[in-house]
């Protein structure tokens, strides 16, 4: 057991930290377009340094780094309040999926523009009627010559309005059992038949979109991992996302926590102090779960339960943290401030997005503890 970094890891961290300090572009500008350009430029700078696809194999433009180095990057980014990367879904889901399941032609075609943020990716999985029960999705893709014709509606597609490609899960075999009739496509967003509408959330922001697809065409060469094999392709990507996510999430929690500590510094209120301490402790618990996940990953095994536990704990924790931020404002909590009101409202979705807490508890109960399915 050793929670220190190796000399090589320390050197990476120091190099990275210095690079961030040199290249940090400052505060993100307001406005969707300006913010997008800012994040794209930041990703390009990182990619020029070779670090956008840090854990991607070098043959695909990555740095072939370890999960631990990836974790170091998350922590340093959080520490430095670095901007987000414009193509986060392409980097963490789309690229890894193409690398794992794609053809050589697909790798050749899609990977480089993901890294350079020349082509932004979004994810078209969820539908209004298919949330937790993702496999019941109804968007259908029908083969017509050398292309599939797609009709349906997707929801919660982050960044769709900036995206060139959508990772689309659609039903290709309506007669098969629901998990077996799905195919994973790469849908070109720049065509008639694809309409993106912003979906405004309770925060007042439109972080997500609705996607209306009516007769859009996808050439057969844009199937990833085989026709009717989409569930397996999607699920490995989701697991991948969940394990890696835990680290990024805990890094962001640490930042929010230190901001809250600055605000509460010196408070005498024992109730606030207790709640703050509990959040601080759980943030450590979350960090250590992420470390466990790294250790599992380093051993090359399947993602352990850390991913599901981490996502669940993070949702509870981030809700507690942001609620404390709001509550600590006292009666001024009736008013919108610049930080905590937004965070409080945004955090209400944490226990829904990317797997509801109820579904995560089911996963832990059934797959980790071996309890019978409901």
């Amino acid at each position: 057991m050793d929670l220190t970094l190796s000399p090589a890891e320390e050197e990476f961290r120091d190099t990275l930290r210095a690079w961030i300090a040199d290249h940090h572009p400052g505060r993100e500008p307001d406005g969707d377009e300006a913010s997008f350009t800012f994040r794209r430029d930041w990703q390009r700078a990182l990619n020029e340094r070779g670090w956008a696809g840090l854990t991607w194999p070098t043959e695909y433009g990555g740095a072939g780094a370890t999960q631990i180095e990836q974790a170091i990057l998350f922590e340093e980014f959080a520490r430095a309040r670095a901007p987000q990367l414009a193509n986060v879904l392409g980097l963490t889901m789309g690229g890894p999926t193409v690398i794992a399941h794609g053809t050589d032609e697909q790798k050749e075609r899609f990977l480089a523009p993901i890294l350079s943020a020349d082509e932004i990716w979004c994810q078209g999985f969820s539908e209004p009627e298919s949330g937790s029960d993702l496999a019941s999705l109804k968007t259908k893709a029908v083969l017509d010559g050398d292309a599939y014709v797609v009709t349906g509606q997707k929801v919660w597609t982050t960044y769709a309005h900036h995206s060139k490609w959508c990772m689309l899960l659609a039903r290709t075999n309506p007669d098969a059992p629901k998990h077996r009739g799905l195919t994973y496509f790469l849908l070109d967003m720049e065509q008639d038949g694809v309409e993106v509408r912003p979906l405004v959330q309770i925060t007042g922001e439109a972080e997500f979109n609705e996607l209306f697809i009516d007769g859009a065409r996808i050439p057969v060469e844009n199937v990833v991992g085989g026709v009717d094999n989409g569930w397996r392709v999607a699920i490995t990507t989701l697991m991948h996302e969940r394990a890696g996510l835990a680290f990024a999430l805990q890094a962001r929690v640490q930042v929010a926590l230190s901001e809250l500590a600055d605000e509460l510094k010196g408070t005498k209120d024992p109730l606030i102090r207790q709640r703050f301490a509990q959040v601080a402790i759980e943030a450590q618990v979350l960090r250590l779960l992420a470390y466990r996940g790294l250790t599992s990953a380093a051993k090359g095994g399947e993602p352990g339960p850390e991913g599901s536990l981490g996502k669940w704990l993070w949702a509870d924790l981030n809700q507690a943290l942001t609620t404390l931020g709001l509550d600590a404002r006292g009666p001024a909590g009736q008013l919108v401030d610049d930080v905590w009101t937004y965070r409080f409202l945004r955090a209400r979705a944490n226990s829904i997005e990317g797997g509801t807490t109820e579904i995560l508890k089911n996963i832990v109960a059934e797959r980790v503890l071996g309890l019978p399915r409901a």
Partner: protein
Amino acid sequence: MNFELTEDQREIKRTARDWLAARYPIARVREIALDGAADDTWDEVVELGWPEITDFGMVELAVVAEELGASLAPTPLASHWAARLLHPELEGRGTVAMWDEGGTDPAASTMDGPAGTKIAVPAAEGADVFIVTASGGRHFAVPSSAATVEPARALDPTRPLSTVTFDGAGEELSGDHFGRAWHAIAVAAAAESVGVAARVTAMSVQYAKERKQFDRPIGSYQAVSHACAQMFLETEGARNVVLWAAWALDHDPDAAFMAANSAKAYASDAAVNVCRSALQVHGGIGFTWEHDLHLFLKRAEANARAFGDSTWHREQVAAAHL
């Protein structure tokens, strides 16, 4: 011993519900709260006699307040009641300015008189009279001519808040009614929270029956059904404690103050818990702007922080026992 509304009280409830449904369907609430449409029912409200219901009885007031909460009606009635409870001779429409900048104790203004700035003042625009708290438990009635109103950003868009600066003019109020008045104000706010909780519980139960995942209504999963049962328990509990407190303010002075503190603490928490839980039951759809749930959530959260939060009210209960 009869814990039921009288026929008169039920009639008031029906009238309130029907009138609010007609004037403030949720689409209309959204127009006013989100799109800036003008709210123009005050004359009708006056005609219904509601601004003076404070003279009539606290149970009656609580009954109307619950319906106000359930409808999210963006009328300035609640803040007018608060002003009128503190200043029964008030003319025109009133509101209450109680929160010092940076202050946290609803009962302890450090303002030296009616001169200075108050935050989070409800329905300040269009108010005729502000009841302003000052140090030493003093209260002043300040005409709007002595107040400069600056709109603030309210968490709850159905209830505008302002920062108001007072120039020092105003008349000090006297009397021994302030203690009861503040407790009555707490009960009125608690009753609104009950209305929010009740409406949101009903919405959640309905959604849990309709929404299917894995070929079953989500309400057939205990994770959802037990959450709904918890909402129901807290809503029923909150309504009971609010009605008790309202009744006690008129009929059982010994119990009234603790009942009122209990009502505000419990109902504030209940509405907040119900709305947060409802968001979980609704899943993604409840997180959208177009769904109404967030308006209820924001009312619950804001109301829980108005007139003293649940921590403050619990401490009053503790002080009465310990």
